[in-house]
Each structure stands twice: as structure tokens, then as C-alpha cells.
């Protein structure tokens, strides 16, 4: 259990170096804004990270034409409600580091992005995903048995990057009570140009045999082929024979979901 905790801590401490640059077409001042560098936690959300970015860059934008900040990578608007690590695994995994993002304050893409009115909106979204995960794992019982202050502690742990604080509550959500492990594994599969896929998946089969990541992906995507797709979770490519339950317990994001990215192997890689 001790080495598991070390593993959990390593996952928690994953960070991505990001370079924020103001969109060229939005620069209004004569003096050019410097790019802004931040090392951001994989497990966090961009709206929690961008106060300084806004402070630094917004003064270079026309004050009469300045709306909510939104981020874009090579033309792809980034959804604020996805954890940063997921956004990177999905869009930036082949990028050079630091990950170069473009900052906008104009022309908010209403069709593609949700607005983020406040940090409370991020908390509300986070708690909703946690509840959804628990609905899948424990029929919602673990979350229902918590007090409101436990919910607040979970969120405070995420917001303030406090591993111990977070896990003091999260361990209750990761418990397998008695003989029952998780009823279903909370997971979502993401691919470029596709909607995310989420399906019911039990950690063991009817005979009680432990099911693996490979089983989980095959059940969610009938045409999944490990020869054609690389599988990335939390920035690593786990062995496909890893038990799905173990992955859920150790590689989930703080929202208690496994966010799994699939990428096609490049043609060149296939041939070799």
C-alpha cells in the first residue's frame, strides 16, 4: 500500500510547462506583450491557473473589446472543463515543450466552448463529475455519506494542490467496500475529431476474473485495435494487460475518472 501511495503522489505531481502568448490579431498596444510561462498541474483546470495570465496579457488588448479569456492550441479551442492533463494528452502530446498556447479575449467561440463565469463554476463542474463517478462505482453511496465539508475538502485539495488534504477524503471514494469492488469503472475515451465515449464496464467478468484495460477498450470501441492506436492515460502508455480496477484506483484524475486518449499510430510507425 505504501508504494501505491508513492505512485499516487507521482501522478498527482505531474506538471506541464505552458507558454501563453496573446493572439497576434488582438494586440492593441504598441509595446508587444512578453509570453507568459507557467508550470501547470495536470490534475488542475485552466481557469484556476490563468489569473496571472489575464493580468499580464489583457492590458495589451483593446479595453473596449475585451471579453472572457479563452485558450487555443493550433486553432483548436480548449475546453476549460477538461483537466489540463487530458487536454495535453489529447492535443499536445506531440507538441514541443513548453506547450505553446494562444490566449484570446475576443471572438469567443460560442459553438465550441462553454463560458466559465467563476471559479465556483469549476468547483461545481468538478463535484458533478465526482458524483457521476461515484454513481458508477458505488451507486452514489460514498458521496451521499459524505458531509458537505468533505466535498469542500476535496475541492480545496485540487485548488491548492494539496495531495494529503485531497486523499484524506478521496480514499473514501476509492474504497472497495467488503467483497464489492467498484460496480462500474468510471472512464471516458477521447480521440481527435470524435465525441468522447463513455460506457458501462465492470471490473470483473461473470466468473470473477479480473478484466484489463484491453477488455475495457474493446468493449467501448468494438473496432479497437492495439496495433493501430496508442493508448495514453496521465501522459503514459500503460500496458494493456493492466487490470482496469487498478488503473481506476491509481491513474484516475481527481474527478475520479480515467480520461483515456487514443491516437492513431503514424503510418511510418506501423510499417516498422
Amino acid at each position: 500500500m505504501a508504494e501505491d501511495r508513492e505512485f499516487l503522489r507521482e501522478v498527482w505531481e505531474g506538471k506541464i510547462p505552458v507558454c501563453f502568448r496573446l493572439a497576434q490579431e488582438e494586440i492593441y498596444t504598441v509595446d508587444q506583450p512578453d509570453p507568459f510561462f507557467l508550470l501547470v498541474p495536470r490534475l488542475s483546470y485552466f481557469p484556476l491557473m490563468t489569473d496571472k495570465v489575464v493580468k499580464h496579457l489583457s492590458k495589451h488588448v483593446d479595453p473596449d473589446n475585451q471579453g472572457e479569456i479563452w485558450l487555443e492550441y493550433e486553432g483548436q479551442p480548449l475546453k476549460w472543463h477538461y483537466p489540463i492533463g487530458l487536454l495535453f494528452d489529447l492535443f499536445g502530446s506531440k507538441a514541443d515543450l513548453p506547450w505553446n498556447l494562444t490566449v484570446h479575449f475576443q471572438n469567443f467561440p460560442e459553438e465550441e466552448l462553454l463560458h466559465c463565469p467563476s471559479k465556483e463554476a469549476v468547483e461545481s463542474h468538478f463535484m458533478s463529475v465526482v458524483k457521476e463517478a461515484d454513481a458508477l462505482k458505488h451507486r452514489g453511496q460514498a458521496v451521499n455519506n459524505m458531509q458537505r465539508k468533505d466535498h469542500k475538502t476535496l475541492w480545496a485539495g485540487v485548488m491548492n494542490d494539496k495531495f494529503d488534504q485531497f486523499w484524506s477524503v478521496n480514499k473514501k471514494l476509492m474504497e472497495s467496500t467488503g467483497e464489492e469492488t467498484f460496480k462500474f469503472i468510471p472512464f471516458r475515451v477521447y480521440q481527435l475529431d470524435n465525441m468522447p465515449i463513455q460506457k458501462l464496464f465492470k471490473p470483473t467478468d461473470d466468473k470473477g476474473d479480473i478484466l484489463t484495460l484491453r477488455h475495457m477498450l474493446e468493449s467501448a470501441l468494438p473496432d479497437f485495435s492495439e496495433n493501430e492506436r496508442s493508448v495514453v492515460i496521465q501522459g503514459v502508455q500503460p500496458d494493456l494487460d493492466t487490470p482496469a480496477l487498478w488503473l481506476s484506483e491509481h491513474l484516475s484524475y481527481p474527478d475520479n475518472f480515467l480520461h483515456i486518449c487514443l491516437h492513431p499510430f503514424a503510418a511510418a510507425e506501423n510499417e516498422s
Partner: protein
Amino acid sequence: MSEAVKTVSEKSKADAPSAPSVNSTRTSPEDSKSSDDNNSKPLSSSSAKQKNPMKVDILLKHIGDAPIMTKRKWTVDRTKKISWVADFIKKYIKSDSTESLFLYVNQSFAPAPDTDLGSIFDCFNSDGKLVLHYCRTQAYG
């Protein structure tokens, strides 16, 4: 797998907090009728209308002072988003599009507005229907 889903839904019904609406008793006869209809299609009397895999059946229930919809059972494209359902309900109950409407699954969580109905249905439907509760204020914060 379907049995497990049924268990989840029965449990959540048992755990459901009492709906604060005066009209809740009136909705039950319709509900029990539809849940008894295990083999027939809840939205159509025609047996020729097989379950279209590209569409899902949803049942909309109100919470609190949110207006009740006369027609609450709908068949919707899997690819429609939660935000589309919210806009649809707002138009139906003649609510302004700028007003808030919260949609809940399992009477516990609010999916992100850009979530497609198909995913939510696959994971949280009971007896082939996805029950969504709508409310004008945050009900399960």
C-alpha cells in the same frame, strides 16, 4: 449488464429525496405504467417503430417550482447535447433562453452541457429510458 443497470436505477429510486413538488403524486401513475411496459415502446403504439439505435428515450421530470411539461417522454437523437435538451425544455415551458435551467441525472449530478445524450443514456438509463430532472435553481449542489 442490463440487470446491473436496473439495480442502479432501483437503488437510486429508493434513495431519491422527496420531490418538493405538490404535483408529484400525479406523475406516478404515468410512471408506473411506463415502467410496466417492459416490452413495448413507451413513445409509440406502433410495433413497427423498433428502437432506433441512433435515438434514445428520455423522460423529463420537474423539480420544485419548475413548470411541469404536459408531454414528458421524448425520443431524441443520441448526438444531441444536454444543452440542446435544456434549450428545448426552456422553449417548451416558455422560459427565457437567458434564464438558468439545471438538468440532473440520477438526481445527483449535472452533466456538462456539451455531453451527448447517447453516452449518458448508455450509462444511466433504466428500463430503456433516461430520466432527467430539471430545475430552475441548483437542486443538488
